[in-house]
């Protein structure tokens, strides 16, 4: 046990020292920002949970049944999330971490290394799920007016559920790594988990769970209650956790202890199973991960015909950039996520019940179209932050090749800009045009949206590339995470500021054109001058937003040479 604790000590110390050495504003700022976002989310979840549960309790006969049904759904979803989180984390902790070479060189039994890494993985993969479900469970305790026994039951049930989920995840990983190397496995699981999430989201949207609180749509109350009361399988760990928490809510002490005992004994059993499995398979899987990567599909390198019109040095940069991007498997999942984001974004507009709104539809459609511009541009900012901002840092330690190459840095940055600009422009225009079609906006709003986006996309992408060049981190293990650094924060703030400024400047002229058009009144010369002036300033701002960040990025990057 001492050895396991010793193996865990560096991890513990890293966390402690991480807080002590956070003196740079970037880290402190990030900590404050994340803390603030976390608190708002936590508070929001608690408030919503209290309101929903109080509403349920107010419904006669079926109020508690609804509450328990919701509890069961939360536990099943959390358990699924815990398993997926455990798979991803344990792959890193057990097979891919850089310190594993050192750890495996210690004179320590393999199973002890495994136990230490598994404990670390369990904590890392489950703390967030537990922390963010806690406000919901606390709300249950408050609404059901329970005592300390409930909170003890809750804590013990959640911990055992996390241990079971983590053990199940790591068991799957250990077996799978024997067949597929861990580095490929991680991409496959990330991809699958995202796919799983999207399917669940779409399934929930199609099921319309809000109808559950509207018993009138069922043929009879009896059918409705039967549907709600259908019990879960007694073999599921979530059922034991559910029964324990339910007993805690109802104050049934003996029943609660009984269900907790089942859950904990299974957790203990799982622990022994994974330790025994690790004894046989962990080292084999780890060794297999260390062997050289082999390409699944080998092909002779060929020139891109699409880019053949470009001058050679520009084509060289562009081809390199595109090849590296698409061969990096971590990008695939991100691309998939963006695809899903587009579908969900457009689907949500399709689901808007405009006809039920008390506001006149034509106003609402155009107001939404205007707000939609901002929303789509914020989505663009997030995507730019994920892809374009880390583009310079993604050169990593190979940046010496660019530094020593007979090509100016300006060219290098502008090529990066165009590589991201074109697809991001396409993405934003698809979002805008598709949602505007769904909203059935006026041709004026459609044209305005398209033009605004056309002028703002290059500015936002230039900010991403320029600020990414100004605050590069060539030593980052994962350059995509650089967007959470100080430079990334500056990019996000400036981009949001630009979008806000342009939309505010557009709001006045657009309102005038729209209202005067609706009333059939011609615009006065003053109004025309006001509109033309506003759009001219927006045009100038858009151009400056392209040039200034790129120049700033180039200058800052050049300063690295001196």
């Amino acid at each position, binding site marked *: 046990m001492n050895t396991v604790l010793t193996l865990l000590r560096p991890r513990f110390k890293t966390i402690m020292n991480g807080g002590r050495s956070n003196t740079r504003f970037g880290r402190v700022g990030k900590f404050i920002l994340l803390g603030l976002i976390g608190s708002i989310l936590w508070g929001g979840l608690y408030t919503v949970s209290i309101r929903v549960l109080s509403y349920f309790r107010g419904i006669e006969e079926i109020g508690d049944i609804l509450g328990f049904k919701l509890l069961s759904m939360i536990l099943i979803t959390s358990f699924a999330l815990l398993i997926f989180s455990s798979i991803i984390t344990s792959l890193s902790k057990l097979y891919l971490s850089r310190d594993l070479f050192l750890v495996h060189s210690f004179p320590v039994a393999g199973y002890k290394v495994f136990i230490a890494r598994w404990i670390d993985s369990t904590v890392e993969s489950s703390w967030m799920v537990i922390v963010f479900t806690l406000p919901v469970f606390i709300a249950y305790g408050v609404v059901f007016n329970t005592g300390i026994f409930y909170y003890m039951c809750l804590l013990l049930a959640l911990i055992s559920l996390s241990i079971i989920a983590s053990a199940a995840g790591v068991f799957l990983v250990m077996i799978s790594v024997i067949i597929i190397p861990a580095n490929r496995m991680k991409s496959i699981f990330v991809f699958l988990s995202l796919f799983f999430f999207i399917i669940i989201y779409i399934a929930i949207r199609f099921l319309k769970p809000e109808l559950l609180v509207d018993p009138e749509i069922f043929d009879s109350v009896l059918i409705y209650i039967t549907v709600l009361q259908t019990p879960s399988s007694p073999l599921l760990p979530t059922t034991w956790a559910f029964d324990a928490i339910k007993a805690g809510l109802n104050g049934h002490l003996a029943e609660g202890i009984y269900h907790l005992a089942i859950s904990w004994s299974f957790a203990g059993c799982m622990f022994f199973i994974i330790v025994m499995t690790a004894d046989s398979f962990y080292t084999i899987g780890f060794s297999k991960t260390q062997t*050289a*990567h*082999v*390409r699944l599909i*080998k*092909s*002779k*390198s060929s*020139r891109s015909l699409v880019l053949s019109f470009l001058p*050679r*040095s520009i*084509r*060289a*940069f562009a*081809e*390199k950039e595109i*090849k*590296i991007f698409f*061969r*990096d498997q971590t990008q695939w999942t991100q691309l998939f996520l963006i695809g899903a984001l587009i579908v969900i974004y457009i689907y949500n507009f399709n689901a808007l019940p405009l006809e039920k709104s008390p506001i006149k539809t034509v106003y609402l459609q155009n107001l939404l179209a205007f707000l939609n511009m901002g929303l789509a541009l914020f989505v663009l900012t997030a995507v730019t932050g994920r892809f374009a901002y880390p583009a310079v840092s993604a050169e*990593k*330690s*190979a940046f*010496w*090749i660019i*530094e*020593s*190459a*007979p*090509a*100016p840095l300006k060219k290098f940055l502008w090529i990066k800009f165009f590589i991201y600009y074109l697809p991001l422009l396409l993405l934003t225009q698809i979002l805008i045009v598709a949602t505007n079609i769904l909203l059935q906006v006026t041709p004026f709003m459609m044209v305005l949206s398209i033009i605004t986006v056309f002028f703002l996309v290059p500015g936002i992408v230039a900010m991403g590339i320029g600020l990414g060049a100004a605050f590069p981190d060539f030593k980052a293990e994962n350059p995509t995470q650089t967007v959470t650094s100080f430079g990334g924060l500056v990019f996000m703030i400036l981009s949001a500021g630009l979008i806000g400024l342009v939309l505010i400047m557009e709001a006045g002229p657009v309102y005038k054109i729209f209202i005067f058009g609706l009333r059939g009144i011609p615009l006065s010369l003053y109004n025309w001058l006001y509109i033309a002036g506003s759009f001219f300033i927006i045009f100038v701002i858009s151009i400056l937003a392209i040039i200034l960040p790129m120049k700033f990025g180039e200058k800052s990057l050049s300063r690295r*040479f*001196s």
Partner: protein
Amino acid sequence: MIELKNITKKYADFTAVDNLSLSVRKGEVFGFIGPNGAGKTTTIKIMGGVLKPTSGSVKIADLDIKDHPEAAKGKIGFIPDRPYLYEKLTGMEFLKFTSDLYGVTENGLEKKAEKELERFSLLDWSNELIESYSHGMRQRLIFASALLHDPEVIIVDEPMVGLDPMAIMMIKDLFVDLAKRGVTIFMSTHTLTVAEDICDRIGVIHRGRLIATGTTEDLKREARITEADLEKVFINLTSQQEQADAA
């Protein structure tokens, strides 16, 4: 071919290179030796155009690197001490990428790249991603890419690190052969036997200053040693300098 005039490089209060001047003739193999932290890599980075000096000038093939950075860099084959490359490109793709940047004639490029890969025993790996290469293979790939555009000057930092004895021998022969064909080679090294074997002249840098230059014989004279290898010369020269600095 290479001319460094009064190069100084400061990092805040620390002077990494102090008023360094030297010139290397066409077809000469120049060795640059010195203790850790003496300023070798900084000097090499300045020569390669990767770092700008605080003051002084660098000329490569009569081109001032400050005024004509792209043209001057085009004449250089730059080989850093650590072989960081684009992991997701294949060896062949990396060679094509650098040859495009350096403007190597496209006609016959594939054959030329294959020849270089074969020379460095990488032909069988040409279509594998660089992420699967060992340290030595990456180092050899950088050599191949640095030679592909027929540079007039090769600047190389610690060329033998990570290479096996066969590759070390091959590189030594290659440098001698290239120098015979008029290519100027500037290399920093800790492997003093390599410097002794192939360098026409050697420069010793200590605390950013060039404390001695010349052939091995010249250096022995300067170190007041007659019967000793370069290692002893190196130790004597640097300790003499340390004593002088202390005084």
